[in-house]
């Protein structure tokens, strides 16, 4: 991967994805050591800019940067000058003045990360922009799946729920297709747009045939959307699209990007079953995000590269 940013999963291609997954394996090994920290990004600065609430993504990006020895600052909309009315652009320009090597961006508007990439010299990582993309979630899902099932090629994956509003689904479909999976999306017609099929997946409106899936990927159902006019009632949703113990076939695995609404998209017993990979996904988050930071920052851009501009003659020698 020679790109400076990770804005969409499509930036990577199969080769780029393979590289990051391989690196993530190395970092997963580091996580098993008594000292889980390597000096790779010593002296670099990483800024996490979170305009939306997040537990997993934010904490795992923070841990990932720390375990690579970078200096990390996390800025949240809540409690920052954004609350005083500072614009998104001014916030980015202010933070860029610290000369960070990378800015990790989570924002409620599609395209926000791309804007940051235009405004700042830092490498930008999209940590979820509105309904658009969430590429590192897709990468950690691939990593988790391949660890558990040993392969990705030919897996049948059903993504179930509110596909229309889901950046996880959008990045996930592209990533899974790139790696050779067969993808079906499923949910209430009001929450599954037909146009999603253009990403190379099949579209279903009921769970008939779900028993043939290898992987069931449930999306978070946002109660506020269900309560509105766009979707059937919660009770109907549970009846028709919830994955419970009866619908889960032995051998299938269940995934969810979190946070789970127990008893809505997944029955509680399914969340806690050995077939659930939900905790594995969280665990994979740190190693995968270390791999992404490493790919974007080690060697390219950043303070170190500028410092060494005059020393390129001195090619690194194998010692």
């Amino acid at each position: 991967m020679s790109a400076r940013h990770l804005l969409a999963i499509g930036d990577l291609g199969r080769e780029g994805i393979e590289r990051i997954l391989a690196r993530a394996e190395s970092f997963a090994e580091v996580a098993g050591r008594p000292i889980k920290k390597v000096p790779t990004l010593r002296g670099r600065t990483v800024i996490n800019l979170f305009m939306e609430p997040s537990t997993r993504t934010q904490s795992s990006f923070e841990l990932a940067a720390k375990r690579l020895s970078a200096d990390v600052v996390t800025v949240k909309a809540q409690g920052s000058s954004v609350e005083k009315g500072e614009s998104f652009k001014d916030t980015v320009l202010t933070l860029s003045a610290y000369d960070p090597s990378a800015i990790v961006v989570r924002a409620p508007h599609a395209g926000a990360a791309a804007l940051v990439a235009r405004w700042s010299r830092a490498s930008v990582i999209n940590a979820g922009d509105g309904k658009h993309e969430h590429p590192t979630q897709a990468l950690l899902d691939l990593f988790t799946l391949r660890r558990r099932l040993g392969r990705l090629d030919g897996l049948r994956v059903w993504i179930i729920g509110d596909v229309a509003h889901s950046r996880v689904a959008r990045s996930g479909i592209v990533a899974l297709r790139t790696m050779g999976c067969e993808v079906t999306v499923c949910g209430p017609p009001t929450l599954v747009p037909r146009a999603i099929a253009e990403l190379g997946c099949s579209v279903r409106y009921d769970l008939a045939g779900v028993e043939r899936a290898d992987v069931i990927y449930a999306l978070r159902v946002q109660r506020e959307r269900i309560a509105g006019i766009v979707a059937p009632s919660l009770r109907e949703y549970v009846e028709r699209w919830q994955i419970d113990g009866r619908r889960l076939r032995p051998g299938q695995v269940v995934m969810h990007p979190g946070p789970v609404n127990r008893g809505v998209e997944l029955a509680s017993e399914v969340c806690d079953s050995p077939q659930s990979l939900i905790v594995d996904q969280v665990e994979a988050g740190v190693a995968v995000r270390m791999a992404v930071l490493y790919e974007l920052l080690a060697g390219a851009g950043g303070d170190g590269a500028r410092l060494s501009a005059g020393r390129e003659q001195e090619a690194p020698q194998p010692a």
Partner: protein
Amino acid sequence: MLVRIAHEIVERNGDGRVAIVGIQPRGVVIAQRLRDKVAELLAADVRFGEIDISFYRDDLSLRGPEHQPEVRETRIDFPVEEHTTVLVDDVLYTGRTVRAAIEALFAFGRPRRVQLAVVCDRGHRELPIRPDYVGKNLPTSRRERVNVRLAEVDGVDEVSISELAEVRA
């Protein structure tokens, strides 16, 4: 050569609590051979490990994105506190790789003692590091490259010196 080094390792570590750890990639192959010989001399199992130093390099930001090292496996599954660890590599040059390997080893605890074995010491150290066991001292110029070839990887055991293709000032 390795037989002699194996004898020296056993002599200097009379208690037999010694582990052999190869530095990726070539040091690992040499370390495997060395471990077998030391185990034979001690008539006991000898702990073995491998270590990849990519994440500990001091030149990552000096390398372009196209020249990033390939990351290989690190596996240290013995308590470093209780063993003398002999780090093994093919060529000792600036000492930077060894420095990184020592730092990597510390991620697994406080090593009881660390020693260094190399097939070939070519000089030109940039750090205060010296080997405990040397196969051969090989005076070289910085313009030369020392190649250690191994039967397991290259089909032949051989040490050769070549001129760097493009001489970098």
